[in-house]
């Protein structure tokens, strides 16, 4: 099948390429943009590892074809930390609350939690669990991840150094 042009803004940088229509946004990010932070687990929308922000909305990048989002803006896990490499509050909290072990699922959790807390800065425990239900983690048992979200909320998103308390209390 002949290729089509795709132009995307990813983490504020413009990328252009020609791709087959069947190339997913996830594969485009990994193979054409060289941004391998977006991970592919199941490739059919179940695991959530490939979650990215598309025009600000959290989506499964394995369920979107790159040609569909021509001209749109994407934020991947590479675009979440500060330009100097400083971890975002969500990333710091995951690190401090043992919210990751092998790290495979982490990019999907980071992008999902970032979108979740932007739209609902003080979720209840139930809302956090519902919000995380679309992402699989096979290492942590999820508790550290849930604790990390509580910790970000407790610290307030502007506080780069959340207190130790949130992790140990939950």
């Amino acid at each position, binding site marked *: *099948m*002949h290729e*089509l042009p795709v132009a995307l803004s990813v983490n504020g940088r413009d990328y252009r390429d020609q791709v*087959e*229509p*069947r190339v*997913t946004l996830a*594969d485009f990010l990994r193979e054409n943009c060289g941004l391998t932070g977006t991970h592919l687990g*199941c*490739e*059919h*929308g179940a695991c*959530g590892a490939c*979650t990215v922000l*598309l025009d600000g*909305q*959290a*989506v*499964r990048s*394995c*369920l*979107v*074809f790159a*040609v*569909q989002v021509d001209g749109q803006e994407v934020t991947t896990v590479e675009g979440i930390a500060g330009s100097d490499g400083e971890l975002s509050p969500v990333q710091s909290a995951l690190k401090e609350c043992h919210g990751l072990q092998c790290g495979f699922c982490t990019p999907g959790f980071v992008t*999902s939690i970032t*979108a*979740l807390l932007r739209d609902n800065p003080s979720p209840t425990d139930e809302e956090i*669990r*519902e*919000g995380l*239900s*679309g992402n699989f983690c096979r290492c942590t048992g999820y508790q550290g991840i849930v604790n990390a979200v509580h910790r970000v909320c407790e610290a307030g998103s502007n506080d780069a150094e959340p207190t130790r308390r949130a992790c140990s209390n939950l």
Partner: protein
Amino acid sequence: MKPAPFAYHRPATVTEAVAMLGEYGEDAKVLAGGQSLVPMLAMRLTHFDNLIDISRIPELNDIALQGNEVRIGAATPHAMVGLDDEVAESVPLLTLATPHIGHFQIRSRGTLGGAIAHADPAAEYAAVALALDATIEATSARGTREIPATEFFTGLWETSLAYDEILTAVRFPVAAGRSGFGIAEFARRHGDFAIAGGVVGIELDEDDRITRCGIGLLGLGSTPLRAAPAEAAVLGTPIGGITADEIGQLAMSGLTDIPSDLQGSASYRARVGAAMVSRAWTQAITHVTEEALHA
């Protein structure tokens, strides 16, 4: 897990889209949010030579109150439906149903029209469309026709849409008078396809008699279904005249095609289905009673 090759088309208008669909015929499939179609393509359960992407056609992404109906464009994402104030006011059952659909990342992209056209037996919006007697608009190069929701679902993932028709909008009646709504479903993990579930919409007269009752069933047949025997049994009776347990049991009567699979046997699904309809019924009754208190 990569889809087989296909040609991609992104028409700018519905007129262009239906012309393409007419041209490519059975070799084409409409792509909207892609949250069901893309996994099926990736797993190679299905294949089409041409995908016609309607997700970026502005006229299909719109919610409007028109007389006594709310018209929702087919490509309106679940997330938009769930957050819309007009929908919450006029078709509250859609607002109640939205959080049950997939996960929030799926709802960013999945569309109301796509969910109904895909016609999965466990699709929440399909059950809501049935329970509320919604009207489905189908457009082809020949024009637009209206299909009552009750005549739309014909088999597993099959509908009465012709090969050259696009589902362009769904019109839901505005909740009238004293009405109450509820939804309950059971899934092993929140957001998974429901093993069984029910949606309920009722209207009462001043004497607390049921003047309208729509009960939609999820996961209990090869299509989304309506529980006609249960609806008939309560029509004209006072709300206290039947218990929630009884309505749940009645809703399961006459079901002949309940799926049996690794997730659950048919008899298990029927038990879960009865419990879910019973819960949805209780929610609807509570809802209508609370409205009365606030009136």
